[in-house]
């Protein structure tokens, strides 16, 4: 528990993941939904790579498609176009055993701690039902020991107290820890954490985030940390990817993104984030923050941010902006960067 906090240099180095083994590659994924005769293009060519044991944050507003991307990664939907490759295996259209094994290695942590645990099950039942079939043949005592270990790993001590409790008797933070303990049973390689702390009390958030970091440290579990809060993204992740209107418009090492964002939307997010240090600097220009994400039912020609961008040019309206490499694994989809 000592190699983090990581300073900027370490984090920049860690951001260079080139090892495809154990990596999750999302390659130009499209997903469309049909609702009352209109087609919504929720994912429009999203691409992202999460290396083995890496923590990547996916930042975006509601309507950006981040939850849909998470569900597509979990294969609740199959992508309409594009590929999903995990640990070298194509899981885009996989089924049966391949899909089951994939879902053991890539698991989801839900946003609402109330809803992600079955209220009719005790903690023991919850942990029991998450055991792989092989482990179910163990004696009750051996299983209980396994549960105690899992509970201690997630910081719930003394574990004996917790086994017979029901979800409604636990706090939000404790529930999320149970949810993490539950995932650990399958020995996951990657956890998709969909806004795991946004519904928790503030004082409990860091506890859960620190737990995620320590599990990453101890077991090499990678995370895709989905959030709209840039500050916690910077705290937890080595890389940040910014999502807008169904595609990733900028990604790079956390420090680089926060200090030197190139895309106007990312700059907008940074300006909008609460920052007590900024106190007294002067009132921010409110007009910058008006506007809303585009209607995804209409096929967008050109850059999706054209309607809100303060630096929009004529070419932004016609052609989608190219992906530019800004060096040091920092990529941005914008014409502004040369």
């Amino acid at each position, binding site marked *: 528990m000592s190699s983090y906090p990581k300073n900027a240099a370490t984090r920049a180095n860690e951001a260079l993941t080139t090892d495809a083994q154990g990596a999750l590659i999302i390659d130009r994924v499209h997903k469309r939904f049909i609702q009352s005769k209109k087609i919504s293009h929720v994912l429009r060519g999203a691409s992202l790579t999460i290396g083995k044991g890496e923590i990547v944050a996916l930042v975006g507003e509601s309507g950006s498609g981040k939850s849909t991307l998470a569900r597509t990664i979990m294969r609740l939907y199959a992508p309409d176009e594009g590929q999903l490759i995990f640990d070298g295996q194509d899981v885009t259209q996989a089924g049966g055993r391949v899909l089951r094994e994939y879902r053991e290695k890539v698991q989801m942590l839900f946003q609402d701690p109330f809803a992600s645990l079955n209220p009719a099950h005790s903690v023991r039942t919850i942990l029991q039902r998450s055991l792989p079939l092989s482990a179910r043949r163990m004696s009750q005592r051996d299983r209980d020991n396994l549960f105690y270990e899992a509970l201690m790993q997630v910081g719930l001590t003394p574990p004996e107290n917790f086994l017979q409790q029901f979800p409604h008797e636990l706090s939000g933070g404790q529930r999320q820890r149970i949810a993490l303990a539950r995932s650990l049973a399958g020995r996951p390689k990657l956890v998709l954490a969909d806004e795991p702390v946004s519904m928790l009390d503030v004082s409990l958030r860091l506890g859960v985030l620190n737990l995620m970091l320590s599990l990453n440290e101890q077991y090499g579990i990678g995370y895709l940390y989905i959030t709209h809060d840039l500050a916690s993204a*910077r705290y937890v992740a080595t890389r940040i990817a910014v999502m807008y209107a169904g595609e990733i418009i900028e990604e790079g090492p956390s420090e680089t993104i926060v200090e030197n964002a190139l895309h106007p939307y990312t700059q907008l997010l940074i300006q*909008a984030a609460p920052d007590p240090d900024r106190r007294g600097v002067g009132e921010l220009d409110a007009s910058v923050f008006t506007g809303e994400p585009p209607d995804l039912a209409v096929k967008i020609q050109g850059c999706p941010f054209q309607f809100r961008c303060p630096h929009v040019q004529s070419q932004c309206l016609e052609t989608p902006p190219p992906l530019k490499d800004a060096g040091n694994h920092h990529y941005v989809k914008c014409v502004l960067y040369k």
Partner: protein
Amino acid sequence: MPNEQIAFSAEHVSVSYPTSRGWVQAVRDVNLEVKKGELVGLAGESGSGKSTLVLAATRVLKAPAVEVTGQVHVASQEIFTLSDKKLREIRWNTFSFVTQSAMNALNPVMRIRAQMHDAMRAHDPKYNKITADKRCEEVFRIVEVPMTRLDAYPHQLSGGQKQRAVIALALLLKPELIIMDEPTTALDVVAQREIIALIRRLQRELGFAVLLITHDLSLLLEVADSVVVMYGGRVMESGASDILFHDAKHPYSKALIQSFPPLHGPMTRQEGIPGTPPDMLNPPTGCPFADRCQHTIAVCRESMPPLLHYDRRLIACHVQGTPAKEARI
């Protein structure tokens, strides 16, 4: 003590309510003040009593649902001694409310204009349809929502427009104080900034005070003039936001500020606060934060620290605040 410069003051307010397991003491002897034109932030987590405090202070919660003691002054009027009729007359005129998830506070089967008329008819003794209509248009202009949306139903407005419409509703009768309970919680960070910037601008132009309740302490430290931190039904610390940000003294305030990782600057490991909030059915004697505090001493568990002036702020702590001066409270 009526005072023209004070838009809202709560003095020794306590609120309890009955449950099947006994009486919950949600708010215990709270003192709070909002000056004219000020933006005061009220921060606390769930169970701190912040929402209960304002709901009881504005008599939205009333007996027998709650038992309230203390005094509340809004624009020099004492609230708890008013008759129902008088209360209704000053409600919305002197103070108005923007509730949590305000977007859902709009009646889905009434047009916005009709809802505004409804509010004015209820609280304006000199209600006149024509002047009311003009006022509707005026507030819409103030919040910068297109006039066409005035005759629309709520579902025809976008999320941001609904939020602005609710603020417009709150502004109708030119109140001196607007109480906002978690107005931006359901919004994205960009929309949140938009609304906060709008509120600040309107405050400068129209001069009303705002009591902003939220759990997002980092937002308050950036935009509020002063911040009040509540825990376990009590005020732990309160003062100007830059003083609190740079030099918070109460262990809870400090720990809560620490719970928000910074966006810029050095990255260090931060801790949340271990433990869980106190049981308000049987609140501990002494400081409610004693169980989770790093600096607890014997007296912390025996008696509740009084809220006193100390080093430019009000603080209730046996360890960090010395009772050098008696507060005027």
